[in-house]
């Protein structure tokens, strides 16, 4: 259907709607971890909004996204970042060992299957410098039963609305713990947003 064709330029509006502004808050908090001269890798960079926040703080950013349309928008939003148009699972061919201080990702892991998530986390471990950190902001299914009920009630109409706007949506992950452990890394801090529907993880080697 013509009106359902993907419109990357509408992505930020749709995701803002779906997350009721939480995504922007998460991105701001992630960007605060970056500093002048940091080599930053933004996985699933989408429209480049987070990349631009990091660049404004003096970081050098490489954005990775499989969606060419998204990258076209990203190049307008954040023209000084470097971009790679590849799947997250193909990082091994393009990025050298221990080449980044910080690896970021927002709402990218929830688009992957568990096998893909573990594979990508192993690649992140390889390309991350020893004292580097990984910051992942994503959607998870809340553990609390009441929050879970609210989650399913609230999310259905919001997902429909977001899908109509952007033709994309997110698929909440039940837990990151096993994936991170299997990749040989550890979660050092975890912060919840929107009744536990979104999470910001800080992961280290």
């Amino acid at each position, binding site marked *: *259907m*013509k*009106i*359902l*064709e*993907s419109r990357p330029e509408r992505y930020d509006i749709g995701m803002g709607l779906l997350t009721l502004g939480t995504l922007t808050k998460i991105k701001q908090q992630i960007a605060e971890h970056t500093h002048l001269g940091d080599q930053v890798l933004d996985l699933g960079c989408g429209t480049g909004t987070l990349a631009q926040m990091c660049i404004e703080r003096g970081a050098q950013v490489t954005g990775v996204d*499989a*969606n*060419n*349309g998204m990258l076209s928008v990203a190049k307008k939003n954040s023209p000084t970042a470097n971009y790679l148009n*590849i*799947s*997250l*699972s*193909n990082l*091994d061919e393009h990025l050298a060992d221990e080449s980044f201080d910080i690896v970021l990702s927002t709402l990218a892991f929830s*688009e*992957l*299957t568990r*096998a*893909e998530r573990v*594979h990508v986390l192993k690649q992140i471990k390889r390309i991350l410098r020893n004292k580097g950190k990984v910051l992942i902001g994503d959607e998870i299914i809340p553990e609390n039963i009441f929050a879970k009920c609210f989650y399913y009630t609230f999310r259905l109409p919001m997902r429909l609305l977001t899908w109509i706007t952007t033709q994309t949506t997110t698929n909440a992950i039940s837990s990151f713990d096993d994936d991170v452990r299997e990749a040989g890394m550890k979660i050092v801090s975890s912060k919840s947003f929107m009744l536990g529907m979104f999470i910001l993880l800080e992961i280290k080697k």
Partner: protein
Amino acid sequence: MIGWIKDIYQTLFRFARFPCEPDTVLIGNPDKSSPVLVTCNFDYTVRHLKDYLEKEQLDCFLLVVNTKGTNVWCAAAEGIFTTDTVLSHLKVYNVGELVNHHQLILPQLSVAGVKRKELKEHGWEGIYGPVYFADLKEFLNNGLTKNKDMQALEYGYWERFKMGLSHAVFCTLVCIVPIFLFASDYWIQAIVLVWYFAFCMQLIEHFIPFTRLLYKGLVLSLPILALVLTSVKDPVLKIQVTMGIIALGAYIGYDAQGHSHLGQNQQSGKLFTMIFAFLALVYGGTLLL
């Protein structure tokens, strides 16, 4: 869920995506020399393809690649099913360790996205299989060669009918609010009209002598206009009904562009906006009468 119930709702709502879990599926008892088939994680295709392979007792590996539930043809044209997607799957699921050959049998309709040359650079040989999986057994038994019939894509009336159903459901969902806002007294007639346009845009559009689907939609509104204008007496209502019919024809014709990769490049967006702006002006004028 029972397969045929899934078939019905996945046909009616085929404009939505129906993903299944990406995986490397073992069909029968494959060994290291068994063929490796590739498909997308569109649930409808995967279910039917698995059934076929099991029924024909073809021992093989089936790579269900993550295209977020989009079918092979659309995913390849939209850049979701690409060489990169296939290479990702090969790595994540360690496919290279399952077989002693590096041959992949790709759906022929993936040709727009999955490039043999790029696969070769990564040590894999891509072979485009038949258009329809019903020919897979013959293709495999004939040493991976295709005859002309296996390469031909048919868009017959059954396929057109199924597309018409989906298009009608989708257009009804889109038009239902405007219909109740602007034509609540005639909502049944309006919905019948939506289904008329949606089905005709699939079933008989190839007989209408225009390339742009938007124009075809407008042509389809002519017989309805003739019918309505001869039966409606009130002049204001006559103008409003005319506007409504043209609007539906233009919208459904324009929307049908999204059904075909050939139609997607018709660049009718501006024309569509102009038609709607004109119709809105005229309709607004009738409210002042």
